[in-house]
């Protein structure tokens, strides 16, 4: 069963074969999770988003038209879910005091066994810098840096031309570094 292609697994999953869908999850969980990690504040949030992604994929599998690669479709859902999560977090943060936010960010780092204070500061700074990027630049940067997708692959996920993606990645790198240099204390 491990030698089956994505299309075979999708066909079997559509015939209510849970094992086939679980194999799809196991095959793509690392990619989905690490993409979510780029958008989320911590590992727990990234796992929660990744879980939502696969539940959505299961529910929408019948709508997958095979017009793009399964992984492209999966990345699109992952990006949308991650952006929705960020939007919700932004809204929830309106009701939190600054202290609560800081505590949350520190708690979020407990999953890192070697997370020293400097690393926590670095993570916090990176997350702030990523959040400060315009949405399209953020998506392009995360797909390029966390997933190491090629410009062509990112273009397929974002439904943009290759040149547009290249410009987005270039600008996102510059803006991110400018933010880090300006706000790093």
């Amino acid at each position, binding site marked *: 069963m491990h030698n089956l292609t994505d299309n075979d697994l999708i066909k079997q999953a559509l015939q209510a074969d849970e094992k086939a*869908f679980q194999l799809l999850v196991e095959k793509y969980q690392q990619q989905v999770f*690490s993409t979510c990690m780029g958008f989320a504040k911590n590992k727990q949030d990234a796992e929660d988003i990744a879980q939502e992604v696969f539940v959505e994929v299961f529910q929408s599998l019948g709508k997958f038209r095979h017009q793009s690669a399964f992984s492209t479709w999966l990345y699109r859902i992952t990006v949308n879910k991650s952006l929705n999560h960020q939007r919700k977090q932004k809204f929830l943060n309106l009701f939190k005091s600054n202290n609560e936010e800081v505590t949350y960010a520190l708690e979020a780092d407990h999953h890192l066994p070697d997370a020293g204070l400097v690393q926590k500061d670095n993570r916090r700074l*990176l997350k702030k810098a990523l959040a400060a990027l315009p949405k399209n630049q953020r998506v392009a940067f995360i797909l390029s840096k966390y997933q190491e997708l090629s410009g062509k692959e990112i273009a397929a996920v974002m439904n943009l031309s290759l040149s547009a993606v290249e410009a987005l990645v270039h600008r996102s790198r510059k803006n991110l570094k400018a933010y*880090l240099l300006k706000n790093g204390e």
Partner: protein
Amino acid sequence: MNCNEVKSFFINSDGHLQALPEEIKNHLASCASCARMVEQMTGALEVINHEKLLQPDPFFSTRVMGAIRENKQPLLLRPVGQMAAAVAAVFVGVVLAMATFSYNDYSDEQTLSEVYYLNELHVEPMEMQLLNDLSHEE
């Protein structure tokens, strides 16, 4: 080379920070502020390499399948559905209680208004009534 030029160099560089030009190295050696700034930037960017290596929980796929099975259940059997049903029940209870309470209010008003209309002694004093009664008896 000044601090702004150093900043601009790092913003526009392609990320190969090992082979820095001599003048940048000299500036960083003499300017603590720029050195700290660059250290912070490279440290933050290094976090990406660390996060890329993180893996989901070993039971992640089992958890996903559990969530899918739970989503397949009818709404009322799910924890969220049960919670919503409980909230709806409390809401109905509150609405019924408010309706009952407002009915009592209304009946109190009626009683008061009845008392008000019965008490018309200022319109027709007791003496007048007694005189009327006497005249009827005669």
